[in-house]
């Protein structure tokens, strides 16, 4: 009886995993199809991979995407460190909650609203749509999540550490760079990483603020997918999948090394659909 039940429950879990991964492997499988369609596998070919690597426009877009992701997450992380310090300084509970709510507005807002309101903002402020508007919006939506990753580390830090440093004659710059920053470093890392994945993954917000002539990978995939099936998208997605797995593996190794000090579950780092 117990055994039978176990088997059924395992079957259910396996089914969920199969469904979760089926589309991804489906894409990868047909990226090698010489038939040119996403059904009926005719023969093995690497033609679509060649196509991806010869598509200069696509390569420029990939570079754009990476530049935006790295730059925006770096800047967002700096602002987030400042934000976490700001939130931690606030003593009154009410003010702190208000600040935290303001911080979380962009996390819970639907992307369409973020995109549309940023479009209005940039148009009014006279920011040209393109690189700068995309960069600014990616910074903007990455800040709150990075704050949420950094804040717990800051609040776990014993306040006597900073006091002790000050008593020993450290200047406030020294306290910041030699005491506080090293203590919250794991939070800064995971904040940066989350910002990076947010930026790489974002479609809806970017779609609103790109304007003409500038594109990131998600926006490009969307416009290509709207034109129908093209196996170069499959080849591209296979490459992206491998890159993502690599990134996640690196992140996993980095965090599990630190995990011995603070057992953070990976679940806490889950992203948000964009």
């Amino acid at each position, binding site marked *: 009886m117990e055994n039978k039940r176990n088997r059924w429950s395992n079957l259910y879990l396996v089914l969920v995993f199969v469904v979760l991964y089926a589309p991804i492997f489906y894409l990868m499988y047909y990226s090698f199809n010489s038939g040119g369609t996403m059904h009926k596998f005719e023969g093995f070919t690497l033609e679509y991979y060649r196509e991806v690597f010869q598509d200069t426009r696509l390569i420029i877009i990939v570079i754009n995407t990476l530049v935006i992701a790295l730059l925006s997450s770096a800047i967002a992380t700096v602002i987030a460190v400042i934000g976490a310090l700001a939130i931690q300084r606030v003593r009154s509970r009410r003010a702190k909650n208000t600040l935290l709510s303001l911080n979380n507005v962009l996390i819970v807002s*639907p992307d369409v609203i973020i995109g549309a309101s940023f479009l209005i903002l940039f148009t009014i402020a006279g920011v040209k749509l393109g690189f700068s508007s995309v960069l600014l919006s990616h910074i903007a939506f990455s800040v709150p999540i990075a704050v949420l990753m950094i804040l717990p580390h800051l609040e776990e830090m014993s306040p006597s550490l900073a006091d002790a440093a000050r008593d020993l004659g450290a200047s406030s710059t020294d306290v910041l760079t030699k005491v506080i920053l090293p203590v919250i470093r794991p939070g800064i890392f995971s904040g940066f990483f989350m910002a990076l994945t947010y930026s790489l993954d974002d479609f809806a917000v970017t779609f609103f603020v790109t304007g003409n002539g500038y594109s990131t990978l998600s926006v490009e995939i969307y416009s290509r997918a709207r034109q129908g099936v093209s196996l170069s998208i499959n080849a591209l997605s296979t490459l*992206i999948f491998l890159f993502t797995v690599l990134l996640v593996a690196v992140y996993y190794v980095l965090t599990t090394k630190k995990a011995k000090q603070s057992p953070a579950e990976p679940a806490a780092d889950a992203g948000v659909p964009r």
Partner: protein
Amino acid sequence: MASKSKPFYLIPYYLWIALFVVAPVLLVLYYSLFDIEGNLTLSNYADFFTPVYLRMTLSSFWYAFLITAFSLLVAYPAAWLLTRAKHKQLWLLLIILPTWINLLLKTYAFIGIFGTFGPVNSILDVLGIGSQQILFTGFSFVFVSVYIFIPFMILPIFSALEDLNPSLLAAARDLGASGWTTFRRVVFPLTISGVRSGCMAVFIPALSLFMITRLIAGNRVITLGTAIEQHFLVTQDWGMGSTVAMFLIFVMALVMVLLGGRKEVRHGK
């Protein structure tokens, strides 16, 4: 530096809040008061309460409800089984991994899977049902959306279940409760917070999806998100778009109040 004063290095963060959190909402509010010619008017709001928009809003809610309900239905047992599994951290990572793959790529895959000659139709053929038009229907929209959202439903429920004290289950069993009673009277009420955050993480984005409707539902399904995108990027009627956005903001605030206040939504508990 005195700790009472606001030191200048905190400025960038407050500037971020002012520019990218407060200002956008105010701008949307401001723009919702202008019609397409730029006249100050409340006509957008009047238009919003006409049958066309009301029907769209209603169908948007209906789909969001379906998506949330089905996600919950699939995710709860999965989360429960995950808590019992060996190597659960690894399993959990495997659940999270697909969320790191671009949403559009996963959606794009379904164009092939649900297509006229795709595997699903082949299976239907073999079963003797014959091929169906699956793509560009409400069904495919709900299916793909549920697919996309499942991990975001599993995670909060999983962490709620993890916090459940196992001795409570043993106690329920000792007192003679059946499996179903235990679930209904003990497990579910104690994990309701996880269910709540899961539903919030699914319901609000489900109201505003627009790329899935465009790619998979072929404009057969129109959500509030599609309407906003249409008004902002196609018809350039920012006023009406902002009005729909204001409504969505209002609903969002309402949902958050109803489902448990300002609790942090998508991350953990």
